[in-house]
């Protein structure tokens, strides 16, 4: 299965091996003094050491090659592929791997739509793929290149790599061929199993066309283009069904007509003549419903819509809390009496997107809390003002501004006031404790993090927040001894900490709640103490003692039973909420949780409301502002408002202020009315209400009508009277185009206009459009329109002309446009030759044959790819080995190891085994030793005696050198000759003879010197 080999990173260093003969030659000469065994041992050791060093220098690597194959199946789960085939491809992947996978091979599964996700990581076992993929995908797109990219990143390194793509190849994001070339150049093989649609008829509404701008009373045609792409045997078949045309001005579509039609193969246009007297932003839709559902393969592409704008007087949208219907009836009536068209929208029938806001020139949020709005809806309101110029008015009340949970939202950014109070002296704080036990619901941890984050964001900087959960033990998430910590500067840290939270299965509520009670009791200055518990209800219930402590501490507890174990229901939790004055929620869909948590966290935000015992008189501080034009200051007595903080921005104009509460910072928190320009629109913050609770004394005053009418009118978008401009938009190949024809009053072309444009896409992203003049009076701009949904286009013609609005609807994703697989792309991918391997296989699939068995004949685990190599540096081991061997080389040269004892030992053992007399041998051996000792001692004594003399300065140099040489040669020869007694005994007498004659000569010389000295005397 695995093969091993040695490789070198820098093989050039291996040339150093040419120096080996040199080393041998030098060694043979320098080691000539050693015996032949030791000399050759030394040379061998040096050779090995040198080879090891050379290999280390060349960075030797240990390379393992593997015969195994890892296969990733890439399953296209986009909507362009019928559900039955999406399921079938999972079965195919499972059975294909089951049939062909060999021992050690791994198999993984990646599913993809807009993004790719690993459904099964590579695993050396058979796989079970559930029919419902666990990965969450956006099936409205096909991003095959992302899937290939992910597979490349996820392949293990220890096996050959192959991707099996099961797709129709109709990608609408990314560039798959480029990605495929990249991975094949890295040795990854690609096999392709194309998805071939079975022959069936297919109806698609390709387009709904309507003039984008129509004058009131002007007749116009609605054209519906229907495409019947019947193929194969069904080619001649026409499809009969109902064509329904709808009109939509608010959020509910109204059916205009429904007629039975027969769609012949090919494209067909149906026309509906229309005429409208009401000015509005209309959305016309068309839907085809086949009589026989089987006659249409993809129902998703059977609907489309288009916008038209019928100009007229302005309209205002007033959004009202569903729990207080009719609260603003008086205001609405007064505005209508002033010729302002007002549409009231309760929060349970909200607009869905930016398109839904287009009929209106101003949006009024009349005391509505944040939790009814999704992030998309909030973004839409903000974009509607910032990008499209509509007004945005927030009217006060107990559920507005910071008290309505609007802190830290996009809407707060659009308002001239911030919803937080930074001055702690002005506003008392609240304390909120969260208890998390919802780990057992699907994606439990995700939802717990979302809900906790939603709560924290609702709180003000002065408020305290704590989160208790169970992770082996009951604990506070902030790891702070007090448990409850001021949000202020800690907010970012808290949100970060949340992401690391992994609540476990809490066995018992009681200890956690006792912790919370203790923490609450330590907070003396909190005006509101509130706790939210989320649980599936199966921990042991809290004890009566802790419930009493909660009641005594004035701590309200709201409980959320979440349905982890069947329908949500917990008497324990509902009793707890009832006992402590909280609210009980039973939730079966986790999506509802963030809204509940925002609402509950708002209880803590209550202190932002200022309600003095005596009414106060708001002061007009900017009397030149058009809203208060002709209105005397002070305004009538007022009973309360929601405190805010004026934004520090020169665009902000504070128009009305409350004199109370008196603070040092000149009423930064006392704003009653402030305005500013936000983007191209206007935003107004009015912090008291419109007559319901705090301004009931205003309704009898004649200023009421004037004040509110002027306020709403000031906020409204200027009328886009387009003169002779005509605007058209269309979409093809993922591109939206806007065409403008500019004519003056005399119908002459207006040239050289500096037009700019902007489009807000379905995700609320605003993108500028470059508009260029292409012909006299004709201007064209393009924008990316790959997403499905509403695109709102705003064209600014330049000069002092008001902006022109129009819209484009992309009814369905491109997924539903292509009804044939892109065989060209798919086969091109299969034919790519991976580096070091064979090209992939393109499995021929007959559209009428759905038998898996034939497809299973192709073996993706075949061994025709470059074998996987994994290398490991080993030079440091080689260096270490060289160091060790070098030690032995030195040892070998410097230390003589004798094996003379081996023979006697063998003899002894042999004689013992054979039972022979051994004492004689011992005696002989001892005699030899004694004799040897005597010889050596005698030699040494003589040498000592011979060298014991008084050296003189004139002793002959050459002879002393001889002596030294003699001693040296004796000592040098001794080890080389080994301890063999014969050789040494031969050496000793010879040395004696030399020493004797030498002494004589010395004595002789001495005598001569003395004789000479005596003669001199």
């Amino acid at each position: 299965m695995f093969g091993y080999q040695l490789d070198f990173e820098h093989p050039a260093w291996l040339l150093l091996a040419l120096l080996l003969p040199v080393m041998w030659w030098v060694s043979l000469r320098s080691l000539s003094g050693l015996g032949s065994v030791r000399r050759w041992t030394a040379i061998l050791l040096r050779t090995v050491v040198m080879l090891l060093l050379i290999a280390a220098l060349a960075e030797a690597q240990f390379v393992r090659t593997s015969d195994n194959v890892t296969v990733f199946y890439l399953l296209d789960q986009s909507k362009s592929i019928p559900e039955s085939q999406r399921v079938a491809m999972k079965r195919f992947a499972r059975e294909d791997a089951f049939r062909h996978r060999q021992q050690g091979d791994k198999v993984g599964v990646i599913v993809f739509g807009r993004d790719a996700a690993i459904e099964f990581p590579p695993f050396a076992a058979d796989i079970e793929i559930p029919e419902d993929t666990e990965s969450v995908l956006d099936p409205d797109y096909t991003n095959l290149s992302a899937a290939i990219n992910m597979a490349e990143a996820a392949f293990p390194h220890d096996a050959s790599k192959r991707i099996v793509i099961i797709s129709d190849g109709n990608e609408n994001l990314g560039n798959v061929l480029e990605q495929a070339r990249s991975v094949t150049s890295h040795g990854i093989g690609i096999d392709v199993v194309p998805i071939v649609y079975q022959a069936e008829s297919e109806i698609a509404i390709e387009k709904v066309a309507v003039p984008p701008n129509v004058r009131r009373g002007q007749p116009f045609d609605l054209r519906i283009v229907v495409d019947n792409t019947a193929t194969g045997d069904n080619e001649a078949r026409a499809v009969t069904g109902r064509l329904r045309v709808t009109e939509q001005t608010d959020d509910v579509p109204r059916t205009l007509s429904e007629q039975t039609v027969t769609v012949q193969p090919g494209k067909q246009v149906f026309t509906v003549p229309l005429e409208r007297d009401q000015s509005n932003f209309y959305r016309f839709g068309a839907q085809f419903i086949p009589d026989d559902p089987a006659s249409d393969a993809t129902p998703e592409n059977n609907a489309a819509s288009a916008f038209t704008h019928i100009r007229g007087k302005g309209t205002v949208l007033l959004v009202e809390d569903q729990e207080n219907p009719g609260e603003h009836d008086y205001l609405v009536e007064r505005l209508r009496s002033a010729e302002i068209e007002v549409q009231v929208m309760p929060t349970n029938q909200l607009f869905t997107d930016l398109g839904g806001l287009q009929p209106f020139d101003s949006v009024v949020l009349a005391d509505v809390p944040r939790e009814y709005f999704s992030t998309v809806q909030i973004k839409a309101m903000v974009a509607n003002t910032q990008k499209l110029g509509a007004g945005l008015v927030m009217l006060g009340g107990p559920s507005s501004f910071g008290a309505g949970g609007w802190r830290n939202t996009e809407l707060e950014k659009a308002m001239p006031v911030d919803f937080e109070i930074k001055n702690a002296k002005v506003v008392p704080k609240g304390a909120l404790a969260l208890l998390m036990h919802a780990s057992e619901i699907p994606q439990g941890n995700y939802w717990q993090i979302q809900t906790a984050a939603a709560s924290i964001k609702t709180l003000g900087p002065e408020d305290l927040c704590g989160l208790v959960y169970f992770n082996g033990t009951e604990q506070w998430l902030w790891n702070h001894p007090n448990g409850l910590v001021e949000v202020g500067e800690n907010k970012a840290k808290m949100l970060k900490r949340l992401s690391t939270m992994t609540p476990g299965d809490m066995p018992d509520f009681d200890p956690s709640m006792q912790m919370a009670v203790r923490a609450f009791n330590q907070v003396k200055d909190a005006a509101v103490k509130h706790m939210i518990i989320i649980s599936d209800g199966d921990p042991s219930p809290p004890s009566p003692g802790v419930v009493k402590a909660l009641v005594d501490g004035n701590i309200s507890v709201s409980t959320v039973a979440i349905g982890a174990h069947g329908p949500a229901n917990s008497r324990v939790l509902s009793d707890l909420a009832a006992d402590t004055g909280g609210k009980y929620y039973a939730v079966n869909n986790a999506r509802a949780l963030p809204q509940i948590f925002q609402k509950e966290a708002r209880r803590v935000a209550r202190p932002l409301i200022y309600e003095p015992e005596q009414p106060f008189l708001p002061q007009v501080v900017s009397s030149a502002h058009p809203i208060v034009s002709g209105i005397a200051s002070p305004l009538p007595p007022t009973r309360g408002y929601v405190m805010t903080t004026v934004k520090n921005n020169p665009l902000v104009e504070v128009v009305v202020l409350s004199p109370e509460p008196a603070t040092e910072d000149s009423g930064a928190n006392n704003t009653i009315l402030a305005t500013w320009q936000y983007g191209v629109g206007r935003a107004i913050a009015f912090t008291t209400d419109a007559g319901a609770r705090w301004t009931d004394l205003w309704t009898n005053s004649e200023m009421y009508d004037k004040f509110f009418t002027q306020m709403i009118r000031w906020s409204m978008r200027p009328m886009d009277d387009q003169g002779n401009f005509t605007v058209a938009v269309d979409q093809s190949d993922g591109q939206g185009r806007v065409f403008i024809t500019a004519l003056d009053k005399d119908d002459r072309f207006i040239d050289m206009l500096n037009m700019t444009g902007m489009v807000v896409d379905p995700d609320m992203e605003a993108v500028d459009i470059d508009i260029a003049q292409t012909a006299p009076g004709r201007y064209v701009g393009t924008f990316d329109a790959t997403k499905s949904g509403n695109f709102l286009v705003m064209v600014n013609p330049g000069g002092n002309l008001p902006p022109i609005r129009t819209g484009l609807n992309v009814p369905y994703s491109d997924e539903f446009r292509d009804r044939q697989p892109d065989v060209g792309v798919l086969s091109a991918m299969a034919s790519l030759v991976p580096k070091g391997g064979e090209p992939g296989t393109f499995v021929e699939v007959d559209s009428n044959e759905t038998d898996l068995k034939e497809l299973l004949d192709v073996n993706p685990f075949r061994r025709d790819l470059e074998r996987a190599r994994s290398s490991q540096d080993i030079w440091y081991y080689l260096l270490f080995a060289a160091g060790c061997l070098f030690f032995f080389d030195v040892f070998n040269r410097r230390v003589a190891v004798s094996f003379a004892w081996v023979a006697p030992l063998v003899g002894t053992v042999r004689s013992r085994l054979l039972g022979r007399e051994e004492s004689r041998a011992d005696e002989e051996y001892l005699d030899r030793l004694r004799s040897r000792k005597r010889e050596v001692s005698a030699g040494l004594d003589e040498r000592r005696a011979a060298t014991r003399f008084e050296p003189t300065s004139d002793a002959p140099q050459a002879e002393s050198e001889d002596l030294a040489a003699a001693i040296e040669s004796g000592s040098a020869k001794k080890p080389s000759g080994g301890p063999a007694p014969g050789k040494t005994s031969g050496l000793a007498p010879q040395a004696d003879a030399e020493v004797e004659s030498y002494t004589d000569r010395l004595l002789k010389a001495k005598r001569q010197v003395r004789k000479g000295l005596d003669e001199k005397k």
Partner: protein
Amino acid sequence: MAGMNGLRRNIVLGTGLLVGLVFLGIVAGCDEDLDGAAADQPDLIWSQHGLLNGQLQKPRAMAISADDEIYIVDYTARIQVFTPDGKFLRGWTTPDSQFGRPTGLSFDREGRLLVANTHYYQVLIYSPEGELVDTIGGLEGTPGHGPGEFGLVTDAVQDSQGNYYVAEYGEYDRIQKFNREGEFLTQWGSQGFEPGQFRRPQNLAVDSDDNVWVVDACNHRVQQFDAEGKLLRIWGEKGDAPGQLYYPYDLLFDDAGNLYISEFGNCRVQKFTPDGQSLGLWGHEGRRPGELSQPWALVMDSQGRIHVLDTQNHRVQRIVM
């Protein structure tokens, strides 16, 4: 000459000695390490995280049959059967697990598997092969508080006379007794901190004298009752010192009558005398071998080895204490 020779010999000898000492030191050191680690190391670790046969996903309860087959129910409501060496033998799934998974397993005297199907408020009785043969109690998936009705069932055991004891928690924490035919006989206990009361009686065991032992998880203690529910003994307090308990979730007896208790909160197994004297501890929180993460259950095999269900680590550790 002699001096040089002597010096050289000394160097070689000295080096040799040094090398010898270092080698001995290394060997001795290794030995010490091994000994030190061996005290906490399990005898065997078996199974791993996963959904395939033989793998576990948050296993919750465990029981061992008379012929040493270990039954484990996990968070996917699969009941899997293993040998004491961790070899997968067979498995099946409870009829429905949408509302929650079983949290208790034990065997009756006839070798049938009693499954506390907690969130369906009843006890399922299976043959060892996985055939559902009977149920005890239950009101069609709704909780009840009358005789023979259940809240969140945690465990069911049988005594030598064939009587069944079933523990439950939720709104009413109590133990009900049934005869062999499943007819209600008596009940005792309520929710609270007092002796004889319970807060999540998580597991039951019957000793050789037919006394019923209860791990009272959220009161962090053990209570012993006679067959009629009379309180005989109560011991244990919250804490992590030896002798203290923190969410005891399961208990078993050895042949000598000592108790082994798995502590969900303290992530350990503790051995006690019947009087509550701690005899030893094994394990602490972690993911490595010898460490536990929220252990729910334990069983003892015929060779006296304890298998600890290491729930959050999705495995079983076999130990000898």
